[in-house]
């Protein structure tokens, strides 16, 4: 009898630098499983962001480029335009994608660039130590909103999936979460669909994943999952926001 559960070939056999309870590991594994299942490891190029996942290339076993903060969609554009045969994905956090790189992601989506973006939304800057992000929840305490995010001063959290879905260009835009096995299975299906649309040369695809950051939220991993469910999911509603068939 063969093994029923093993490390995907696309995932390196190593330990990660991520904190206990962080959902990056789950997201990495889902991406690796999809790449294995689609048999595309040899023609995939990943683009690492600036943020906690900057070192993600250490955990995968295929070609990678490391972007500057927020610029991954421009790099992915450069690759896909000159080498449309390659499979390209960016993996970006909320500070990277929704703050400094908002212009790059909006224009890449609007041009209908045929790459895939995995967008990790955990409502906080992780690597720099828990500062307020564009997706930080109202009244959420961070090191740069020590009294809680005041929305009359800093606005409301940016809903990236809704923002990109408002573009007229066809695309696949979905929001999922990694807070429980049921949702993780749905997230994997979404990630696979996103890569499949790319392989069919159909459209730009983005999977937003509501994730947790126990360390910077100052919570246990279990409490963080609960907080994401109670505070984030009512605001960041799950579901498909755009399907290419609808255009």
């Amino acid at each position, binding site marked *: 009898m063969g093994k029923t559960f093993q490390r995907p070939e696309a995932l390196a056999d190593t330990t990660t630098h991520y904190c206990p309870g962080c959902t990056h590991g789950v997201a990495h594994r889902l991406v690796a499983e999809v790449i294995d299942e689609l048999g595309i*490891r*040899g*023609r*995939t*190029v990943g*683009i*690492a962001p600036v943020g906690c996942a*900057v*070192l993600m*290339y250490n955990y995968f*076993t*295929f*070609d*990678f*480029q*490391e*972007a*500057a903060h927020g*610029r991954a969609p*421009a*790099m*992915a*554009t*450069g*690759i896909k*335009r*000159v*080498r449309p*045969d*390659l499979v390209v994905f960016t993996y970006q956090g909320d500070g990277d994608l929704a703050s400094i790189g908002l*212009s*790059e992601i909006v*224009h890449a989506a609007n041009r209908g660039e045929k790459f895939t973006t995995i967008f990790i939304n955990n409502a906080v800057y992780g690597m720099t130590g828990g500062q307020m992000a564009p997706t930080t929840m109202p009244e959420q305490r961070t090191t740069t909103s020590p009294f809680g995010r005041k929305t009359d001063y800093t606005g409301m959290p940016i809903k990236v999936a809704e923002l990109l879905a408002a573009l007229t260009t066809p695309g696949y835009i979905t929001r999922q979460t990694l807070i429980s096995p049921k949702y993780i299975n749905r997230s994997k299906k979404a990630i696979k669909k996103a890569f499949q649309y790319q392989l069919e040369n159909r459209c730009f695809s983005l999977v937003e994943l509501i994730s947790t950051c126990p360390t910077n939220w100052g919570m246990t991993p279990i409490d963080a999952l609960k907080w994401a469910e109670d505070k984030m999911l009512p605001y960041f509603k799950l579901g498909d926001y755009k399907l290419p068939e609808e255009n």
Partner: protein
Amino acid sequence: MSKVLMKGNEAIAEAAVRAGCLNYFAYPITPQTEVAEYLAKRLPEVGGVFLQGESEVAVSYMIFGASACGERVLTTSSSPGVSLMSEGISYITAAECPAVFVNIMRGGPGLGGILPSQADYFQSTKGGGHGDYRLLCMAPASVQEAVEMVMQAFGLAEKYRNPVMILGDGLIGQMMEPVEFPEKFKAKPSNKDDWATNGMDTRKSNKRNLVKTLYLNPEELNAHNLKLKAKYDRMEREETRFESYNMEGDYTALIVSYGTMSRVCRTAIDILKADGLEVGMLRPQSLFPFPVKAIYEAAAKQSCEVVFSIEMSMGQMMEDVERSVCGLRPVHWYGKCGGEVPTPEEVMDVVRSIVK
């Protein structure tokens, strides 16, 4: 091949295609926009990629991504646009990827103006982006030389795995001159298996490639910077280029000038010569590496009393001329940086005011 009359910007665009570069990303900015307009029509004819990016920042990373997967790639811009690209240029240099940038300079700082200038000398030769990096920087003085430098730039960028900057002033981009596209300058394909992130299936080894610029370990980062420095040292040995004018015999003064400004100086030198005053000129064709040794030797000539740095900037190149001359002779600056090119008469007056 017969010569054709072309505008500088269009000739630069055609030169890239002839050199084997079929990928171009850019953002419109005066006075270089004709490059983009030309390539928007030309590249589809040859199966190439033309894409207008949303900003110069994004364009510099489109260049990075395309270059990092091993494709030959070009962008062109003008001064404020190159400021925005400087972030990406720092990363591309750190990641050791080849790419060709063209800056058709306009006046600065800030929005400055849209007329010719050489005010991006520091930006191009001393950095502009962050960190210890250098660009191989070539400065054409004619449309024909711009064509040749662009064509050669792709091979040089791949030789050093480093961006090459072609630094032309607005006049080089805007004027029309007869040009030809010498086949001999067409860049040969280079093997990128060792580093390009073009998919593991495309190479024989099973090794994956990684293009990155983060070195958290201080020893590794220092070693990386020493490796980059060794490349810049090699550029100084192998790529220093300059042209001499009226330096065969004795000369009382030496002018250092480049680009369009050097052509005006040439006329001034001819008139001064007819009047009995011998002035030599050393024209740097490479601004990095700067022809330090050649300028020192030219200034050291016994007949030479004084050195002039004549530039369309406020003494930026003069700093390099001074460090070349090493205090051996007095160095004087003359220049304008509002968009007007100094006339031969102005240059002659400056020389005569110092050399009696």
